[in-house]
């Protein structure tokens, strides 16, 4: 009987330690993108940290007039519903056939009210329209007008919890990416459903894409499917930027 008591006490102690550890660990780890010991990733983290410390927070990127709108190449995935596409999505093709009437954006993770938002739900939020420059890592740039709902408004409506640190996005072309809270609540960070006065076209990310105007183009993920609010850094595995050799932070 005595030994069983000891064992129970030890179990309680271990469980308690694990619980305390579990509470402490998220407070001090995984708040920066991992480097995996790669010197290039260390440089990326240095740039990210330096910009977050030195730059004034949430300054607006330059906005242009409608006369400045230019031609705009569609690169990367241009149609995830295309069966010839290596990351073809059967679900996306069905959504596309019904003109995205069944499309929903799932908002989950560290929010008080997780749920699904249809295109009509997103359009009921006060819209923001901005004419901004898209800067591609390849070296080209283009100016377009984007209409959408600021991501921060959707997160606030979903009841984002105070421990939230990152917003991960998942797309129908099988990409996973994330941004920190400064960029998630940046007034120009949109869930964009309109481009140049029309519904967002398939090559440019229909029905809804992210717009992050303070980072390079590849952070503005197209074909959004899911948003997950987390308190730890998630590199997205092999669907994310880092494991594919790219910098997670692209404010350069």
């Amino acid at each position, binding site marked *: 009987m005595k030994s069983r008591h000891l064992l129970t006490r030890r179990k309680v102690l271990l469980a308690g330690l694990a619980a305390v550890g579990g509470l402490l660990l998220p407070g001090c780890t995984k708040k920066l993108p991992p480097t995996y010991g790669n010197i290039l990733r260390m440089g990326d983290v240095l740039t990210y940290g330096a910009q977050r410390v030195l730059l004034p927070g949430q300054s607006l990127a330059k906005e242009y007039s409608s006369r400045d709108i230019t031609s705009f190449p569609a690169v990367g995935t241009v149609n995830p519903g295309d069966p010839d596409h290596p990351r073809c999505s059967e679900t996306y093709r069905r959504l596309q056939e019904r003109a995205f009437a069944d499309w929903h954006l799932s908002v989950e993770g560290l929010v008080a009210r997780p749920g699904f938002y249809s295109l009509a739900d997103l359009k009921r939020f006060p819209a923001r329209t901005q004419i901004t420059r898209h800067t591609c890592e390849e*070296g080209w740039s283009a100016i*377009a007008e984007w209409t959408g709902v600021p991501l921060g408004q959707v997160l606030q409506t979903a009841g984002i919890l105070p421990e939230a640190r990152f917003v991960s996005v998942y797309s129908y072309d099988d990409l996973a990416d994330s941004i920190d809270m400064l960029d998630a609540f940046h007034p120009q960070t949109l869930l964009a459903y309109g481009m140049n006065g029309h519904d967002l076209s398939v090559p440019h990310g229909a029905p809804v894409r992210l717009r992050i105007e303070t980072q390079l183009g590849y952070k503005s993920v197209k074909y959004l499917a899911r948003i997950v609010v987390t308190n730890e850094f998630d590199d997205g595995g092999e669907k994310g930027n880092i494991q594919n050799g790219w910098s997670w932070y692209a404010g350069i």
Partner: protein
Amino acid sequence: MAGHPPIPTDSPGHSSWVRIAHWIVSLSFLTLVFSGYVILMCHPRLYWGEVGNDLTPALVELPISRNHRHGGWERHGAFSQDAPAVVSASRTYEIFNENSWGRSLHFLAAWFLVLPGAIYLLVGLCTGHFWRHLWPRVGQLTPGQIWRDLVDHLRLRIRPATGGPQYGLLQKCAYCAVVFLALPLAVLTGLAMSPAITAGYPLLGSLFGGYQSARTIHFVVAVVLVLFLIVHVAMVVRSGFKRQMRAMTLGRKA
């Protein structure tokens, strides 16, 4: 070597901080040129203003990768009937793109230019090194003196190395142009291409006439700096390679 002042034998060699800064910046610069070339290969078209892409006319098209031929685009048509020239299109071919490591290497190397470079500028200013050794004297800058130094260089009559910062007139002008003009301009045009930095400091974005102008100036400055490097190495060889290398690594006393 007639006409040159005699080499002072008791003149100082290069300070240790100059030698350390010289080699850190040299390695950083070579890495920046290499990675910059890789980045340029991805989109070897240069423009002026804020915008430039494969669907807009280029200022210059450099034949340095298969991407320079901007054909192979499937047009989707215009965004609206009011502006038929504003179109979209997608690629029909796989481009050369090594920017994943290319960009990260470029920015990592840039830290080794910016931080040691800033310390170098600060120490050079505070110790009077720039004033004593780099800045040309007003009295020296006469047309006759410049002409004589130019003719000497063109005839490859290069003074033997002193192993220290006792520089000729054109040499001073070249070093000043690199230290106070070209390298800072390369850094500033680099920063002017950052979406986050130009959001914080909009003046930087418009200073060079837009994102693509900054990119074009960045490239031109890089070319000028590579030309400087070629001439610099040629002069080092011409003025006594071993002595010069020893003076810039171990110091003159060694």
